[in-house]
């Protein structure tokens, strides 16, 4: 259990930095792409901002539980294991969720596709952190 919480904390901090750093960079590089976000579909009043910024830690907790249960199935260099973990998460969770999101919510295909890429990026970051920490633990 302690290992799950440590993994959640480390991966949560890493995802927070890379995700929101990447989001701010993308907004400054491709501002026109983000015009579609000025939509009533997205919360406007800032009342849910705290949930938005807690997302990396909620995701990390879920992925840490998943890692704790199935880490023995991933082999090789820690970076490779991290990517494999990220892509498996995308295949079993992200693709079906994005599919139902596009079918039910008034958002564009390109927007949903970027969410998929964003999710894969986040799960790969978490996977690399988990694999790196487990390698460190084994070397000690």
């Amino acid at each position, binding site marked *: 259990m302690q290992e799950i919480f440590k993994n959640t904390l480390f991966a949560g901090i890493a995802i927070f930095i890379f995700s929101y750093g990447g989001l701010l960079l993308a907004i400054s590089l491709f501002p026109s792409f983000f015009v579609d976000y000025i939509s009533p579909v997205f919360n406007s009043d*800032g009342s849910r901002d705290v949930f938005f910024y807690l997302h990396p830690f909620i995701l990390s907790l879920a992925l840490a539980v998943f890692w704790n249960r199935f880490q023995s199935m991933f082999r090789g260099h820690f970076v490779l294991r991290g990517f494999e973990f990220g892509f498996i998460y995308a295949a079993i969770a992200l693709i079906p969720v994005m599919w139902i999101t596009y079918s039910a919510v008034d958002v564009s295909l390109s927007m949903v596709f970027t969410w998929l890429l964003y999710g894969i990026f986040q799960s790969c970051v978490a996977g690399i952190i988990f694999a790196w920490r487990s390698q460190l633990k084994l070397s000690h």
Partner: protein
Amino acid sequence: MGFITKYYILTFLLSMSGYTTTTKVNEVWIIKSSSSLEVDGSTNINNFSCKIHSYNQTDTLYFSPKDKTLKHIKVNGKLKINVADFDCKHKIMTKDLQKTLQAQKHPYMIVKFLNFSDMPSSPISNSLTTGDVEIELAGVKRTFQVQYAIHKTNHQNIELIGTRGVNFSDFNLKPPSKLGGTIKVKNELQVEFKLQLKKNI
């Protein structure tokens, strides 16, 4: 129909139009349906311009005679603008603006003209004048001083272009902020209304 009956019908009709028989009227101008309204704003990622291309109805402005004791001329008349008619040239942004302006709860933006510094017919062409308007938006009323540019097309027709900077916060509205505040609409808006007026003879 007797004189008294006619008098009462006339009084009733005038009172229904929001005008009383005791108010002296110097000039009457019809606000033509071709009048338009534009709201310009910006976000940290783009600029937007939302427009009501055509007012689609007519209204009347009643100008009282200039009172020497007052610096301005009292005016009676208003625009009743359907918020759902705003078009931001971007379907999603249009929907978002209408949500921000609480179009479902408060479907109309009302611009009530209170006074002008000059009669529309008196200034020379392409001159400037000022006046107070009361804007009601999202159920909140605020009074602003507006500067107008007057373009006379002929003796009977003029275009009155009024511009004024307002804030979302003036009407207790919060400018939209998305994705944890990474995308923000700025509080300041520039409102421009183009009134096409025709003198009622």
